[in-house]
């Protein structure tokens, strides 16, 4: 009989439904999540290491068919063999086994007249295979540029150095790749072109790939900071609100003092002393940003603790910890959730600002602020500020929409307009 009674949705579920009904906020969160997941997997899409290589090496390898001329059941020098194409997956090898192939393994002995050691240059290898046209192939990731590597020198047009001074002189023959009659040498930063669709920065690194990796780092960074400061802020705020009394009184005074610290200044100061890694920087920001959520949680707990269900839980002999985090916390999620987008936004902008001022992540970490700083140093490089700004503004705009949606869903205040 009981089973026929339809249980009504919990208030939380109702709010999620309400949030989903706000289309722009819902789509914003989907887009942002998709972008973040893409950026987390950016190693497979934006990378200079090849995904797959099919290569016939013209050497007899064990297992290949051969014509056994002297019937000794093994391959000897001079016997012809049928060369099998083998497949290699350098990117997976690099990521999962942390090792790389040697350049000469794929027959890439020289690059631009210089001997190539170490890992192969896959983009040039692809060119080489395409020119050979014997069926060997290289499958590069979607956007084959790394955020760390210098990518310009491979575009320089080759020339024959007659007087071997290392420079192209008038009259020396060269290969005119783009048929403009001039021997081109690329000096960073370069404006967007067909290879680098957002140009390169002042060290000749690809801007788009730095922006994508920068997105990953920015979001990861701000999520880390928000998570950590929530962890601290919720525990402290909950204790202040729940226990009240003297703890609350002195705790609030302390927090008031703490909140008036000019914390960007102090973070800059500490960063200039410590030259922090991303996690230490996140910890530094956490130290100063837990106060914001602490206030809200304290207020919410203060209101909730006088309600009947709390008294009931206490009467049942629940521990303080259980009352606080099993009973009150689920009922005071509103400020915690509506505050999150603001916190994330704030931390993204802080990271950009710190990087812009030179007190943020250590180079060569890809970061938006660093690109913007380069543009500020040389105003001709419009592409170094416009593209990061567009991506940053879109990201922040989407988060703003999400925060609006959260607020509408969790704080159902309807403005009725009279007349």
């Amino acid at each position, binding site marked *: 009989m009981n089973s026929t009674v339809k249980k009504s949705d919990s208030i939380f579920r109702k709010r999620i439904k309400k949030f989903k009904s706000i289309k722009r906020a819902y789509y914003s969160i989907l887009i942002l999540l998709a972008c973040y997941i893409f950026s987390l997997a950016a190693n497979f899409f934006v990378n200079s290491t090849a995904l797959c290589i099919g290569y016939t090496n013209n050497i007899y390898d064990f297992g290949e068919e051969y014509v056994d001329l002297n019937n000794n059941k093994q391959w000897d020098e001079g016997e012809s063999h049928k060369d099998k194409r083998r497949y290699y997956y350098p990117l997976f090898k690099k990521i999962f086994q942390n090792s790389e192939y040697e350049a000469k393994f794929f027959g890439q002995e020289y690059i631009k007249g210089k001997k190539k050691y170490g890992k192969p240059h896959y983009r040039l290898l692809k060119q080489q295979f395409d020119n050979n046209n014997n069926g060997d192939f290289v499958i590069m990731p979607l956007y084959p540029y790394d955020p760390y590597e210098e990518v310009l020198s491979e575009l320089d047009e080759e020339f024959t150095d007659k007087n071997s001074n290392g420079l192209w002189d008038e009259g020396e023959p060269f290969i005119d790749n783009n048929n403009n009659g001039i021997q081109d040498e690329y000096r960073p930063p370069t404006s967007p072109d067909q290879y680098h669709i957002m140009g390169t920065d002042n060290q000749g690194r690809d801007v788009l790939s730095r922006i994508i990796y920068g997105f990953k780092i920015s979001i990861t960074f701000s999520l880390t900071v928000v998570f950590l400061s929530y962890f601290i802020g919720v525990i402290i705020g909950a204790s202040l609100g729940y226990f009240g009394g003297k703890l609350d009184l002195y705790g609030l*005074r302390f927090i*008031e*003092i703490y909140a*008036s*610290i*000019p914390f*960007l*200044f*102090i973070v*800059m*100061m*500490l960063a*200039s*002393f410590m030259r922090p890694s991303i996690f230490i920087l996140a910890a530094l920001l956490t130290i100063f940003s837990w106060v914001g959520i602490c206030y809200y949680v304290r207020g919410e707990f203060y209101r909730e603790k006088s309600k009947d269900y709390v008294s009931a839980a206490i009467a049942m002999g629940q521990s303080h910890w259980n009352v606080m985090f099993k009973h009150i916390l689920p009922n005071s999620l509103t400020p915690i959730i509506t505050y999150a987008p603001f916190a994330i936004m704030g931390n993204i*902008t802080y990271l*950009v*600002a710190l990087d*812009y*001022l*030179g*007190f943020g992540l250590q180079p060569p970490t890809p970061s938006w602020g660093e690109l*913007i700083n380069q*543009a*500020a140093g040389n*105003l*001709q490089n*419009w592409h170094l*500020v*416009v593209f*990061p*700004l567009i991506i*940053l*503004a*879109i*990201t*922040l*705009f989407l988060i*703003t*929409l999400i925060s609006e949606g959260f607020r509408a869903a969790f704080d159902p*205040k309807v*403005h*009725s*307009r*009279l*007349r």
Partner: protein
Amino acid sequence: MFEYTIRRILLMIPTGLGITFMVFFILQVAPDGPFERAVKQIKQANMGVGESGMSLSSDVTGDSSELTPELLEKLRMQYGLDKPIFVRYLIWLGIYPKESQSKIIPINTSFRESVDAIKFNTYKEYLLQKHVKVVKDDSNQLLVIETGVGLEFELPDILNSSLKEDFDNQKYFLFKQNYKELPSQNLIKTWYHSDWDIKSFDQESGLITLVKTQFKGIMQGYLGYSEKKGKDVSTLISERLHISAFFGLTSLILGYLICIPLGIWKAIKNGSRFDVVSSIVVFIGYSIPGYILGIVLLVYFGGDYFPLHGWRSPNFEELTLIGKIKDQLHHAFLPIICWMIGSFATLTVLMKNSLLENLSQDYVRTAFAKGLSERRVIFYHAVRNSLIPLATGIGSIIGVLLAGSYLLEKTFGIDGIGLLSFYALIDRDYDIMMGFLAISVTIRLVGNLISDLTYALVDPRIRFK
């Protein structure tokens, strides 16, 4: 209310002390401070001499680059590192006397001390000097005594006669002070007690460390001295305060002038196409940090249409009044846009939401029921009440704006307080950093207080207890 204000002001004291001590502590324990940099510099200088002077004895150069313990000790004293951090902090505050001068001399020998160079109209410049001597008196107590000023040279008559007239002139302060204690010229030749203190006495070597102490900290209005810039920190800050304040206040006023009407209009037209479109524009503006917008504006409009950086043209003083206004507007136009964009969205949305909330209140219903016109209800009744949350923001915004903005001032090359403290951070100029911190914390705390008091003033429903 009065009691509340007093309590808030009292609470400001531990707040200010807490923040400044925290930063002071970090600065003092941080590596690579001014002391370490000075030591490094001296070492490098020594090494340079060693290498060029004695190229053969390379093993000696290694030793000569090390500083002698005495020199190191002297340097530490010069940077005040011979005292514990807490005492250093008290010195910075001006509660504990600061050693402004120090001298190490053997006992019973005198040293000359230059007091002040004075100049009388067209006459020569005189360096006033006095002698200081440390002696042991009969009871084996150390005693510091000094002569009056100017023992070493004959005082010209003109100096004595004009001296009386210039008694009130600050310039001759030291001169005057010494003569006050010396009624007749004969007494100059006698020794008398000095304002030098004995800091330490090394029995073996017979060396005495003398220091001159004075209370010199922020309590006395002294913020410190910047070695790099060669100026007092208070001068440096007061030279720049008006620049930061100009941008802060102008953008604040312009922001209010634009955002309030816009917010009202958006609330009245809530849900219309105008509301939606302007909301999108406002939110896009909210998503663009001001300093990045600044760089973009400089990329596209800088140089050709607007100056690339600076607060005013270098030849500003030579311009006519109209030229000055033009020049100032020309320089300030782009920065002001960027300064405004930060608070633009928050103010507009706050105004709109606040008005919307008021429009759904009962008193608005009553006003409509009385038969008042819509215009009168909105502008006379509702808008007045919706301005309350905006008014309270002023205090805290002023605090933030006056303290300057590193980001915007760096972008536009405006030499305000923000840029000053930014370069102080890079150069490790601790005095500027602490001075800036003291000023900005004070401004911020006062701003918070003002905003809370405004809150109570404009909204009679609110009573602080």
